[in-house]
C-alpha cells in the first residue's frame, strides 16, 4: 500500500513540476491534451480494462460534456462550474439507466451497441444545428475562472486540467486496490463465478459504466472551456477508437498504463506532423501489432520483453563460455 502512495506522489510531483522545464508554449499545449486524454483513458480503463466491458462509444460522453457545458454557458449564461456539474450529473444518470439494457449484452454485441450509441450522439451533434451549431461547431465558450484567476493560458490550463486528472488517477487507484477493484476484475475473468461469490455483477457493471461516463463528461466540459470552441469532428467514432487504443497500448487494468497510452498517442501525431495523413494507418498498425504481440500492453509488455531479451543474452553467453 505504501508503495502505491509513494508512486503516486512521485508521479504527481513530476506532473506539477514539468512545466518549469518546458518554456515553449506549444509543448505545454500538447501536455494539456495529454492531461485530458489521460483522464478519458483512465475512465475508460475502469470499464474496459477492469470490468472487461467493451465500449466503442466513449467519445459520445466526452462530446456530451463539451456540448452541454458549451451550450449552457453560451446561450444561457450559466456559471461554467455549475454547468459542468449539471452536465456530469445528467449524463452520469442517463448512462446509468442506459447501462442496464446495454450491459446485458456481451462481447461483439456490446461493442456494436456502444458503437451505435456513439454514432447516434455524433449524428445529433451534427444535425441539431440550432442547438449545437452543427458541423461548424460552437464557439465563444468562456474560460473557467476561480476567484480572480481566469484559466485562459496554456500554463494555467495545464494546472487546471492536471489537477482534475490527478484526482481521477488517485480515485481510480484507490478503486483498483479495493474490494470493488477485485470485484470488477472477477467479473472480467468469470462473471458467473463472481455472482456466485456474491458480486452483483449486473449492478456493478452499470455503476462503472456510469462512473466512466461521468469522468468523460467532466473531461468534455474541461475541453470545451479550454478550447473555447467545439465541433462534432472531435467526438466521432475515430476518437472512440483512439481512446480504446490508448487503454490497450498502456495495458488493460493498469492506471499508469493509461497515462502512458494517452501520452504516446497524443504526442505521436505531433512527432508525425510531417506525415499528417499517415496517422490513421499508424493507429491501425499499432492496434494490430500490440494486440498480436503484446496484448497486456506496454506497461507489462516492455519489461517482460526486456527480461526475455536479457535471458536470451545470458543463455547465449553461457553457450559461448
Amino acid at each position: 500500500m505504501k508503495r502505491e502512495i509513494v508512486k503516486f506522489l512521485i508521479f504527481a510531483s513530476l506532473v506539477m513540476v514539468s512545466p518549469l522545464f518546458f518554456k515553449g508554449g506549444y509543448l505545454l499545449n500538447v501536455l494539456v491534451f495529454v492531461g485530458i486524454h489521460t483522464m478519458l483513458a483512465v475512465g475508460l480503463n475502469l470499464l474496459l480494462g477492469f470490468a472487461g466491458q467493451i465500449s466503442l462509444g466513449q467519445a459520445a460522453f466526452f462530446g456530451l460534456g463539451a456540448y452541454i457545458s458549451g451550450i449552457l454557458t453560451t446561450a444561457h449564461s450559466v456559471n461554467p462550474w455549475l454547468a459542468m456539474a449539471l452536465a456530469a450529473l445528467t449524463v452520469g444518470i442517463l448512462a446509468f439507466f442506459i447501462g442496464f439494457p446495454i450491459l446485458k449484452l456481451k462481447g461483439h454485441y456490446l461493442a456494436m451497441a456502444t458503437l451505435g450509441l456513439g454514432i447516434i450522439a455524433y449524428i445529433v451533434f451534427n444535425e441539431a444545428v440550432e442547438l449545437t451549431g452543427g458541423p461548424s461547431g460552437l464557439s465563444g465558450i468562456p474560460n473557467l475562472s476561480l476567484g480572480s484567476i481566469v484559466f485562459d493560458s496554456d500554463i494555467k490550463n495545464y494546472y487546471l486540467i492536471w489537477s482534475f486528472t490527478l484526482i481521477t488517477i488517485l480515485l481510480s487507484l484507490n478503486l483498483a486496490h479495493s474490494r470493488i477493484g477485485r470485484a470488477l476484475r472477477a467479473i472480467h475473468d468469470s462473471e458467473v463465478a463472481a455472482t456466485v461469490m456474491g458480486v452483483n455483477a449486473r449492478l456493478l457493471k452499470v455503476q462503472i459504466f456510469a462512473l466512466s461516463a461521468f469522468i468523460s463528461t467532466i473531461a468534455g466540459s474541461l475541453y470545451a472551456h479550454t478550447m473555447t470552441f467545439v465541433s462534432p469532428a472531435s467526438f466521432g467514432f475515430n476518437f472512440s477508437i483512439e481512446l480504446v487504443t490508448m487503454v490497450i497500448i498502456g495495458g488493460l487494468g493498469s492506471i499508469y498504463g493509461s497515462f502512458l497510452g494517452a501520452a504516446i498517442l497524443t504526442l505521436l501525431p505531433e512527432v508525425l506532423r510531417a506525415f499528417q495523413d499517415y496517422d490513421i494507418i499508424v493507429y491501425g498498425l499499432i492496434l494490430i501489432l500490440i494486440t498480436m504481440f503484446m496484448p497486456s500492453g506496454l506497461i507489462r509488455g516492455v519489461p517482460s520483453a526486456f527480461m526475455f531479451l536479457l535471458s536470451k543474452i545470458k543463455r547465449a553467453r553461457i553457450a559461448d563460455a
Partner: protein
Amino acid sequence: MLRFEGITQVFGGLTALDNISFTVKKGEITGVIGPNGAGKTTLFNIVSGIYNQTAGSVFLGDRNVSGFPPEKLAALGMVRTFQNIELFGQMSVVENVMVGLHTRSTSGIFSCAFKLPGHLKEERAIRERAMHWLDFTGITDLSQADASSLPFGKGRLLEIARAMALEPRIILMDEPAAGLNSRETVELAALIRKIRETGVTVVLVEHDMELVMDVCDSILVLNLGRKLAEGTPRAIQENPAVIAAYLGEG
C-alpha cells in the same frame, strides 16, 4: 436446510428434469448421483440460481428462494463450485479468495474511491481471513501465484477455499473429484469432512462412487431427469433399480 419441490426443467423440446423433490438435512453431506444425462448439473444450476426452473420451488431454510440470482443466494449463505473450475485467472491465488469475502463487507464505489477511514483496516482483515482459508485447504504456500498457473488439483482446492471464505451455510460442489488422481481424491474426502465439521452442509454431484459412498450421509439418485431413489449409501448400493440404471437392463 435445503429443500426443493417439484423441480421441472424443460429446454426447448427436452425435459431435463421432471418433478424432483428432495430435502437436504442440515449438517449432512449429501450426494447427488446418476448416469450421464440424468440432469444432475441442471439441478445444481437451478438450485444455485444460474437457471430459472420451468416449475417447482427451492427453499433455503424456510425461505422460498426460487428464481433468486446467485448473488442473492450468496448473501443468504449458499455457495457453489464448478465442474470446470471457474477461477479468476488474472488474479493471484489470495486475491481469488478475497473475492470470496465480498459479501463480508459493504464498502461501495464511493467509499472505496475516497478511501474513507476504516478502509485500510478492512482490507488488512480481508487479507488475513483469506490466508486463513488458504490454510484450511492447505495451499498457503501458493498465495501469491497467478491463479491461472495452478495445476488442476490445486485449482480445485483454491475454488473450495474461495467458496468457504464466503462463510456459507451450505456449499454445493459440482463434481469436485473430476480430474483428480486417487491420492488427491482421498485428500478431497478428508477436506469435505473437515468442512462438515465447521457446521457447513455439503451437497455434491459426483461420478466417483468410492468417494460418494465413503463420504456421504445421504444420497439422491437421478436417472433421465427423474428421481430414481434416495437414502443412505448402503440402501442405494443395494437398490436394484439403481443397479439396473447404471449397468443397463438385462
